[in-house]
C-alpha cells in the first residue's frame, strides 16, 4: 500500500542483498541461492509463456472464421498442440512453485536456503534442457498430437516430432520432481525454531501439497512417456490394439499424472490468494486449518479422480461411477477455500491494491471455473460436453482465471520483496481490470459454444458458431494487452520504481521481516517464531499508533 510507503520516508535500498552480493554470469549460472534460481526461472517461464501466448493468438486468429482459411489443417493442429504443450509443461506446471515458491518457501519457514541448493539449480538446468528439446521439436517442424499424446495416434500415425517433444516433457518432469522433493524436505526439516506446522503460512501448505503431487505423479508420466517412445521407436505394441495393447491404458497412466497435475498448477495459486486476502483485509485468515487441510485433501483426492477425463473412452460404467463420485468429493475442499476467503473479507478493512484486485478476481473466476467442473463431473452431462469447448472454457477458467491470475497477484505482491522496488500502482490496476474483462470475454462464450456442441481442436467449424468465436477472439486480443502490460511496467519498475522498504504492505510472515531484497542467506539472524501466521492484530494496532 502506497500510503505506507510514503509514511516511511527516505527508504533506501539495503546494501547487502542477494542481487548485489556477487556479480558476473558465473555467479548466476552456478548459484545455489534459491532466490537467484527463482529469478532465473521467472525469466525462463515468462519466455515460455510468451511463446505459448503467441500460439494461442494464432489459434484464436484462425478461429475467427468458420473455414480453416488462415492455416493448413496440420499447421493449426501443431499450433494448438504446441500451445498446450508449452503452456502446460513449460509454464503452468512449474509456474508458481519454481518462481514464488522457490523464492519464498525457505524465507517463509525461516531457513537460509532450500535443503538441497544444488539439486535446485540442477532442476533449473533440467528444465532448460527439457525446454530445449521442446523448442527443437517446435523449430524443426512442430508436433501435432495434442498435448495429451493419445495413442495410437501419437505412436503409430503421426510423422511429426513426437519423440523430441516427449523426451522434452520427460526431462522437464524430472525438474518438477526435484523441485517437489526439495520443498518437501525443506518444509519438514528446515523450519526455524518455533515454526510449527500450524504456524506455517498457507502458501507453504499449498506448495507442500503441490509438491506431494509432483513427487508422486510425475514419475508415472515419465514411465508413460518412455513407453510411448518405445512403442513409437521400436513398435513394442503395448498401446497398439493390433498387437493386443490397449490404447485406453495409456489414458489411465497419462491422466494418473495429468489430472493431479492441474492441482500442481492451481494449489500454489490457492496459497498465493491465502496470503494476499488477509494482508489487504488487514485481518487474520478465516479458518486457517480448514484451508490448510483442504490443500492436503485436494492433493490426496486429486489422485483418485483421473478417469473423469475418460468417461466415454470405453472404461467400465461402474468404474466411471466411482470416479465421478470422488470427483464430487474433490470439489468440496475447493468450495471450503472459497468460502473461507470470502469470510476473511467480513469485517476487514479492505485495501484495493493491485494484488488484492487480482485476488478478488481470482475468487470470482475460480468459483466459476470450479462450479463448471460440476457439469463435467456429472457423468450424464459429461457425455454431452466432454471434449467440447465447454471443457476448454472450464479449464481456462481454472488455469488462466485461477492460476495465471494468482500468479500475477503473487508477482505483484512479492515484487517489492524480490526487487526492492514497488510496481507502479496505476498501470497495474488498469492491467488487472483489462485482464479481467478480456479473460471473461475470451472464455465465457466458449461455455456456450461447448454446450452447443462445438468440438475442441477443430480447425474449421460450422458457421453458426462464428459469432461466439469472434467474441472469444476479440476477448483474446484484450486479454493479450492486459497480459503484456505487466511485462513492461514491471521491467520499468526495476529501475524507476519506488523503493519499497522491508514491508510495504505491513504484512505478516517471515519474508516481510527481512530486507527487500533479502540478503543472500535470507536473514541476518535466524528468526524465532512465537506466533501463528496472519497475526494482523499487532500489525493493525501499530498503524493506529503510527498513523
Amino acid at each position, binding site marked *: 500500500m502506497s500510503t505506507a510507503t510514503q509514511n516511511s520516508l527516505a527508504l533506501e535500498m539495503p546494501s547487502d542483498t542477494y542481487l548485489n552480493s556477487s556479480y558476473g554470469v558465473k555467479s548466476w549460472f552456478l548459484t545455489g541461492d534459491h532466490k537467484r534460481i527463482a529469478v532465473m526461472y521467472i525469466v525462463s517461464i515468462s519466455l515460455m509463456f510468451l511463446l505459448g501466448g503467441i500460439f494461442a493468438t494464432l489459434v484464436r486468429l484462425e478461429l475467427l472464421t468458420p473455414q*480453416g482459411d488462415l492455416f493448413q489443417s*496440420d499447421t493449426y*493442429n501443431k499450433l494448438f498442440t504446441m500451445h498446450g504443450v508449452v503452456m502446460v509443461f513449460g509454464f503452468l506446471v512449474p509456474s508458481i512453485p519454481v518462481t514464488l515458491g522457490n523464492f519464498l518457501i525457505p524465507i517463509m519457514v525461516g531457513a537460509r536456503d532450500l535443503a538441497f541448493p544444488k539439486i535446485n539449480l540442477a532442476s533449473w538446468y533440467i528444465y532448460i534442457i527439457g525446454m530445449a528439446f521442446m523448442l527443437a521439436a517446435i523449430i524443426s517442424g512442430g508436433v*501435432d498430437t495434442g498435448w*495429451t499424446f*493419445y495413442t495410437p495416434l501419437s505412436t*503409430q*500415425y503421426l510423422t511429426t516430432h513426437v519423440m523430441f517433444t516427449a523426451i522434452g516433457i520427460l526431462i522437464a518432469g524430472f525438474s518438477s520432481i526435484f523441485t517437489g522433493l526439495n520443498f518437501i524436505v525443506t518444509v519438514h526439516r528446515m523450519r526455524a525454531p518455533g515454526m510449527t506446522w500450524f504456524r506455517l503460512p498457507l502458501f507453504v501448505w499449498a506448495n507442500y501439497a503441490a509438491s506431494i503431487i509432483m513427487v508422486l505423479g510425475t514419475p508415472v508420466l515419465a514411465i508413460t512417456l518412455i513407453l510411448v517412445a518405445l512403442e513409437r521407436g521400436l513398435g513394442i505394441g503395448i498401446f497398439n490394439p*493390433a498387437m493386443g495393447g490397449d490404447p*485406453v491404458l495409456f489414458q489411465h497412466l497419462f491422466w494418473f499424472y495429468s489430472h493431479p497435475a492441474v492441482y500442481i498448477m492451481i494449489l500454489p495459486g490457492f496459497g498465493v490468494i491465502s496470503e494476499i486476502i488477509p494482508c489487504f483485509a488487514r*485481518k*487474520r485468515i*478465516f479458518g486457517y*486449518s*480448514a484451508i490448510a487441510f483442504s490443500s492436503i485433501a485436494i492433493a490426496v483426492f486429486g489422485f483418485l479422480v483421473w478417469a473423469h477425463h475418460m*468417461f*466415454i*473412452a*470405453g472404461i467400465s*460404467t461402474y468404474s466411471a*461411477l466411482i470416479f*465421478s463420485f470422488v470427483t464430487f*468429493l474433490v470439489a*468440496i475442499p475447493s*468450495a471450503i477455500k472459497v468460502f*473461507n476467503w*470470502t*469470510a476473511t*473479507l*467480513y*469485517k*476487514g*478493512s*479492505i485495501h*484495493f491494491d493491485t494484488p488484492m484486485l487480482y485476488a*478478488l478476481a481470482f475468487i470470482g473466476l475460480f468459483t*466459476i471455473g470450479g*462450479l*463448471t467442473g*460440476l457439469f463435467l*463431473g*456429472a*457423468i*450424464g*452431462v*459429461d*457425455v454431452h460436453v*466432454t*471434449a467440447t469447448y465447454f471443457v476448454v472454457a472450464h479449464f481456462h477458467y481454472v488455469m488462466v482465471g485461477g492460476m495465471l491470475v494468482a500468479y500475477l497477484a503473487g508477482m505483484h505482491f512479492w515484487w517489492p520483496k524480490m526487487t526492492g522496488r514497488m510496481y507502479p500502482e496505476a498501470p497495474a490496476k488498469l492491467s488487472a481490470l483489462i485482464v479481467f474483462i478480456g479473460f471473461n470475454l475470451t472464455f465465457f462464450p466458449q461455455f456456450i459454444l461447448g*454446450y*452447443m*456442441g462445438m*468440438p475442441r481442436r*477443430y*480447425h474449421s*467449424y460450422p458457421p453458426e458458431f*462464428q*459469432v*461466439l468465436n469472434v467474441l472469444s477472439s476479440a476477448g483474446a486480443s484484450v486479454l493479450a494487452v492486459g497480459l503484456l502490460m505487466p511485462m513492461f511496467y514491471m521491467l520499468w519498475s526495476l529501475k524507476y520504481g519506488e523503493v519499497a522498504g522491508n514491508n510495504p504492505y505491513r504484512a505478516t510472515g517471515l519474508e516481510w521481516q527481512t530486507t527487500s531484497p533479502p540478503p543472500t542467506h535470507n536473514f541476518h539472524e535466524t528468526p524465532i517464531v512465537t506466533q501463528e501466521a496472519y497475526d494482523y492484530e499487532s500489525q*493493525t494496532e501499530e498503524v493506529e499508533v503510527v498513523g
Partner: protein
Amino acid sequence: MLPQYFPLFPESASTMSTRVDALYFFILGITIFFTMLVGLLILVFATKYRKEKHPVPVQIHGSIPLEIFWTLVPLGIAMVIFAWGAVLFFQEMHPPKSAMDIYGVGKQWMWKFQHPGGQREINNLHVPVGKAVRMTLISQDVLHSFYVPAFRAQMDVIPGRYTTVWFEATKPGTYHLFCNQYCGTKHSGMVGEVTAMSPDDYQEWLRGAGAFGSLATEGQKVFASMGCPTCHTGADNARGPNLYNLYGRMVRTEDNRTVLADEGYIRESILNPSSKIVYGFQNIMPTFQGQLNEDEMIQIIEYIKSLTYNGQLLQLQTNTQQEPPVNLNKIQQGVDVTKPGTNQNPAPRTSAVPVTEEAAPAPPSTPPAKQNAPKQPRGAAPQARPNGSQVEQR
C-alpha cells in the same frame, strides 16, 4: 433471423437430450446461485468494509460450525448432482432392448455406416424418428469419437474394440455429426450429418439406398469363405461350438468363467480364439487376425446374431422391404447349445447346415444332417420370404 446466426443453445432432438438438459439447467442454477452468492458477498464486503469506511478490522479466527455448514451443504448438493448424473449415465449407456442396430466404422477421416439391411453410407447417417438406435462403433485406426450434439450422445470409437451408444431421435431434421476425439490432420473434416426421418420416409430411404444384400447374408458369405462352417456345423460332435442362439447368452469358458456373448465377445473369439475357449472345446481355431476387415467382421457378427431358433431376426426391424437375410424359423429355444451332448433338442443341431449349404464354397463336411432340418425356411434363399417373420415388427 438472429437466432439462426447466433444460437445460444443446441437443438434438442432426442429423448435423452431433454433429460440431459434438465440436469444441465439444474447445475446451471446451482452455478449461478453460488457465483452470485460469492460475487455479491465480495461486493458487499468490499464496499462495506473498505478501509475508508471500516478502518479497524475485527479479528475473527474462524468458526467450526460455519466450516461444517459449508462443507456439508456443498457435499449434499454434490451428491444430488452425482446421483442424478449417474442415473442419467446409466440410461445413456443402456439402450432399450427394442433398439435397432446400426454399425459405424471410423477411420481417418470419415465415418462409414452400415444398416442391417446392407445399406451403406459415408459421413451420413439416416435414422428413423421415434425408434431407439443402438450404434455399434469401431475404429479402423486411431481413436475417434462419435458425437451428435443434438442428441446429447457421444462415445469414443476405439480401434480393436466395440463401443456402443444409443439415441432415439424425436424430431425429423438434419443434425451435426462430429468426430470429437482428436484424430490427426483432418480431424475437423471428420464431420457428417445425421438425418432423422419419419419412419415412413426412413423406409423409403432404405429402399432407395440400394443395398446388395443384408449384412447377415453378406456375413454368411464371408463366414463360408473363411471356412468357418467346417467346424461350426452345429452338430453335437462338431469341433466348434454351435453358434445358434449364441448372441446375448452367457457362455461358460474352459477356465470356468462366464462371459456374455455380445458383439465384443464374438469379435474377440474370431481374432483371439485362445482367449475365451468355450467349455468342453479344444483350442484349435486359428486366428483370423489380418484376414477380415472391420466391415466383414461386422457382417459376420450380424450373421451370427441372426442365427436364432425362434426367428427373431433383429435386422428385420429396419429391413422389411429388403429380403430377410437368414431365416431359421420358429424352432424351439435350444438348451445349452455350447456343450456338446447336453443339447436335448435335436433340431438346432441341424439347422446350421442349410446355411453353409447356401454358401458358395460349401465345405464337404456339412451335408449329413440336411434332410432332417424341420420346416424348410432355413436356407434363407433371398426370395423365400419367411412366414410371418416380419409381421411383428410392423
